């Protein structure tokens, strides 16, 4: 009985998140990010020299790569890469560094469900820790509708085996605007709206996680500031 209770509870909760900043020494910013058993590592380098073919005088060029654990990137990985690039292009304040390149690399370490959302969150954290200019930070949340028609937030890999539909949403931290919607499978529009609300609520939790960890990384004074801020606002969308 208690076990089913735990399962019930886990359906509308995010899995446990962990992150480790600057685990790699050769880049400007890197983060090892895990959500449940899914682990990704993201690294940024920039602003750096750009090839003439990619040079733009209006803003910086964004290079984004996603690497699978085994083999060469296939279509699936390319789609994921494109999703990350799209969101990053929206969030990156590219006007800050014209004629430069920003390079973002995401490496999958272990895929145990909702890898799309994890890769996006890791990319955002890497940008934040690498000090690249962003208009806003963003958080991605994955949610599915399982066989019984229940909503499962941030599912594990074995929960995704039998799914009716899967959704990935990304929200920005300032206005709470939708940055990315990825859906798969059949669903009603009412279900879509419900899931968007669930994911939006969950994104607040992720932003809180970002803030807490970055404050911890940068020292205790920032942590205190975050703690006072934490008290003042709790409802999404959050102001930064």
């Amino acid at each position, binding site marked *: 009985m208690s076990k089913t209770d735990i399962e019930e509870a886990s359906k509308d909760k995010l899995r446990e998140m962990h992150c480790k900043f600057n685990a*790699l020494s050769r880049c400007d910013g890197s983060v090892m990010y895990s959500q449940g058993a899914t682990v990704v590592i993201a690294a940024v380098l920039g602003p*750096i020299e750009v090839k003439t073919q990619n040079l733009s005088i209006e803003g910086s060029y964004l290079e984004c790569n996603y690497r699978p654990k085994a083999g060469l990137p296939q279509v699936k990985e390319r789609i994921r890469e494109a999703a990350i690039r799209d969101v990053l292009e929206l969030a990156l304040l590219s006007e800050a560094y014209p004629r430069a390149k920003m390079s973002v690399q995401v*490496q999958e370490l272990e895929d145990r469900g909702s890898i799309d959302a994890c890769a996006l969150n890791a990319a955002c954290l890497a940008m934040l820790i690498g000090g690249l200019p962003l208009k806003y930070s963003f958080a991605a949340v994955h949610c599915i509708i399982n066989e019984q028609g229940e909503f499962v937030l941030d599912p594990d890999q074995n929960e995704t085996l039998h799914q009716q539909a899967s959704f990935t949403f990304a929200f920005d931290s300032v206005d709470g605007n939708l940055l990315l919607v990825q859906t798969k499978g059949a669903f009603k529009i009412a279900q879509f709206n419900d899931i968007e609300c669930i994911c939006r609520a969950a994104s607040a939790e992720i932003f809180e996680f970002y803030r807490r960890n970055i404050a911890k990384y940068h020292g205790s004074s920032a942590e205190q500031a975050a703690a006072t801020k934490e008290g003042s606002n709790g409802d999404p969308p959050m102001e930064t």
Partner: protein
Amino acid sequence: MFMNANLFEPGKSKPERNFIQGAVKQNTRFDGRKSNEFRDVKLTFGADWGTVAVSIGETKVLAQVSCDIGTPSSARANEGTLFLNVDIKGVAFLDEAQATHDQRFLTLNSLLERTFKSSRCLDLESLCIAVEQSVWCVRVDINVLNHDGNLYDASTIAALAALMHFRRPEVSYVEEEIRTFSERERELLPLLFLHYPVSVTYCVYKSSSQPLVDPTLLEENAADSVIVLSFNSYQELCTLNAGGTAPTNVRTIMQCARSAASRSKALVQFIRKALELDAERRQQPNQVAGLVDLLNESAPQLSFKHLMAEQGQTETNKADQLSGDEPMQLQETVSEEQTTDTSTQKIPEPQMDDSSWLPQEQNLSEEQQVDGVQLSSKQEVPTTAKAGKSKPNRGKNKFVKKQPPTPRKQNQSDSEEEVTQII
């Protein structure tokens, strides 16, 4: 704001090179290690079979083994295939200078190919399902996460550990039909090995005769030549890769080879031990194994120093029981003897035979007994206190925590002595 591609890597600029050359002359290293001291090696196994993350200091590498059924080559119709691939793009950010990147990629791939494929370390015939029709194709992908020197060792250790960790599904071949059993139906099978090779890397500088083991990126880029030796656990040479411009004599290479052989043996033992611990962990229910451990500070760490120190202790205890001899006392007598050596400098080195490898075997086994790394019993020779001084005591420095600095000096003078003998 913009980086010059050539100066981006540490060790590429002239002042850095001069600094390292000067440091090597004084027998010091930037990170405080001795010339024959290794960085700690850590293994983290993933939740999937055949996933392993290796870190040597700041160098981090991820290896993933996968397999599928394919057709064999016509030349070797009854053998499976092994494909190794190193990927150094991605998070390691190595592609800044295209030329060095390509060169690195080629040397790494050829090293792995020679170490694992040409030495035939896997029993490929056991991967055959139906002759000339279907065999298992094993693929090892190595992703470099961070490059801080010695990618050679990191990738060979990662490849070996991943291959040893990997399990393939069982298949049956009945009436021209292949049936693959899932994990639930039949237990997965590990790959069969004929031997276990790993590599050890040395850097040689013009300013010093003492090669540096396990170089950092700074040391590697500033080096005049890099020697990579692959040995298997039976101390047989699998690969020798020596290039560069530093004049290297036979003695230096032999000296490297000897310590590389024992290091390789210890490394394979370490990997075995780590695999055992991982298997134990998998037995327990509710244990979150996997690469999440990289993030988890409290997770048990499979590090070389930790595991092998334990082993050293248990083995010296064993030796203690067997011979009734106090192990610490043995160590002390060795170092004392060495101290007298350094002061007098008159006892000649035991004659080293450069032409053949075999006579040294005796010395090796003796050294290893002192180290607490046990050799197979047939090679064992009664230990004498003098045994230790014939060779640089790399292992001893590692296993005995408090060692007076005198043996190290002895090491250096050893090698100098060797060189002068030749000249």
